[in-house]
């Protein structure tokens, strides 16, 4: 957990993986939690069936650098933009957002416009997600 995951960074990247809505499919989310932890990041997993508000609150109170959401029920368009808006309203608009699940390709532009810089479909290699988080996670001010 304390292994520096990238040269020049002293503190590990903190990531929240969230499961908004009523969907119980957690295999993908949990595999990604494990992969990010193996890559040296600190990962908070919300568990399934969280409301958008609960996810925003957890991201803010855990002071994370990136938030990844998973949904396989088709409710992503109702839930993901709401969480992005909530984070901005809570002053956490600089947190890197990414998402995955059963998300049709044609929904990606709208999610990107809502702030999700990474939209990952099924069959995405874990390495790509790890690289995305390394490249885009909010930079911490370590001087304080």
């Amino acid at each position, binding site marked *: 957990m304390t292994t520096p995951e990238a040269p020049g960074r002293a503190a590990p990247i903190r990531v929240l993986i969230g*499961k908004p*809505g*009523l*969907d*119980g*499919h*957690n*295999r993908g989310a*949990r*595999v990604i*939690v*494990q*992969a990010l932890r193996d890559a040296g990041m600190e990962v908070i*997993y919300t*568990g*399934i*069936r969280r*409301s958008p508000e609960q996810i925003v609150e957890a991201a803010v109170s855990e002071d994370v650098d990136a938030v990844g959401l998973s949904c396989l*029920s*088709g*409710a*992503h*368009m*109702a*839930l993901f933009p709401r969480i992005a808006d909530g984070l901005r309203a809570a002053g956490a608009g600089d947190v890197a957002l990414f998402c995955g699940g*059963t*998300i*049709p*390709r*044609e929904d990606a532009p709208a999610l990107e416009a809502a702030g999700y810089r990474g939209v990952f*479909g*099924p*069959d995405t*290699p*874990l*390495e790509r997600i790890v690289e995305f988080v390394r490249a885009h996670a909010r930079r911490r001010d370590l001087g304080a």
Partner: protein
Amino acid sequence: MTVEQAPAPAGGRAAWAREVERAFAKAPERAAARRTPSGLPREPLYAPAAADAAFEARVGWPGEPPFLRGVQATMYRGRLWTMRQYAGFGTPAQTNARFKTLLEAGQTGLSVAFDLPTQIGYDSDAGVALGEVGKVGVPISTIDDMEELLEGIPLDRVSISMTINASAVVLLALVVAVARRRGLAPDALRGTIQNDILKEYIARGTFRFPIAPSMRLVTDTFRYAAAAMPRWNPISISGYHIREAGSTAPQELAFTFADAVAYVEAARAAGLDPDLFMPQLSFFFAAHSDLLEETAKFRAARRLWASLARDRLGAKDPASWRCRFHVQTGGVTLTARQPQVNVVRVALQALSAVLGGCQSLHTNGMDEALSLPTEASALLALRTQQVIAYESGAADTIDPLGGSWAVEAMTDQVEAEARRLLERIDAAGGMVAAIEAGLPQGLIQRAAYEHQQAVERGDRVVVGVNRFQVDDEAAPAPFRVDEAIAAERTARLAAFRAARDPAAVARHLDGLAAAARAPGAPLVEPIVAAVLDRVTLGEIMGTLAGVFGEYEGADHY
């Protein structure tokens, strides 16, 4: 695994032959199965000319303990498995139309997919239903919804399977209530409620109440079905979702049967005689892509359950030892890349289910890595079953891989590994304690991660994903649920609630809360009465949650 653990054979080949005659007298043999396309005779069953004691104990005869070769004497030589495609989306009327399309296309049973608010016990207008109404299944909040869903379906002739767990008791009550409106008694109804709450805590996630009151609801439906619905399966104990979550094949069997043992023990503790309800238990497994291991798994499931039911659970009636099961092809094996290749995966998986002797089968649509199936993919999936049934010959001989050295050895291996895992669950204090400690969840998680790493390393080839990729793929148009449905449902529910007697609703809910507070009081009957007086699913589940509480402990990782 030792020979002694398998239930003793009843009467060998002679008993089987007598049973075959009886069965064909009731439902004639499929004449087309009797000869190969080359005109050669095809026996219903192939077995060694001289069966020794070890063969009788380990392999035996179809329809006879230990049921390795099948739960019926004639298997598909008499009647084919039920082709039962899981369907539901949008509104009750849209889903009813899809059911009729599938029945006209040759489907032989129904399988209802409910949306997540319905599965967890919320009406479509509840706040938590945001974005979920009609998405993964059909929303059913009221008796009028259920009536619309089942419009024109002959409930005494078409069997209806419902994937419903936390709120199973309410959906069962709604079917009973609609049947009553049509003048049909519960004993005329054929179908299944999944009602397997333990695997919701392990793998599927649509739990609502804590474990103990949930188990009480399950055993109450066993009681009701044994007394009033002899043709109904009050549970379908499911390994499918455990497998989907990442388990191995032996873990799928072990955790399913550990759940089954927990249900039987809970029902016994509630005062039910195992032989009264165990013949109505049914099971549900996944079919993944390794053709021979999956076939072996289905065979091992039957022998293992026969042994557990008799030796461990003390059931005396051989009907209680029969592991009857539904199979669905593996959703998690479907790829978003080159989705047409999924048709081939589904065909091979379905073949393993048929070689393994399933009682009913769902084949997935090729587009289901990204959405619900379109009507065209749902029909293609049904056609896949029909090709296996009518063209492949795989259904024309009972347990055609029985006696294969490879398959018999794999059957023994899967069973032995499942037994080892069952011992681990026992050592943890049984399945309820193991779930609370996160034991099955942790083992499933580890297997899922190991699988993903093997795919990433290329040790496990997934065609089109880590080998044989193509660059520019045209994505097929995904199936879409109309987003306007949620607003329509809200208006419809308001009108439904306006047209009822509020005093009657209050009386039913007060009575239900009192019954829930009284240990062991029947719950199915007051819920049937309530839905007939237009109490909604969300109101009933909310009232029960007020007494039972909400489950909070899942999915820590």
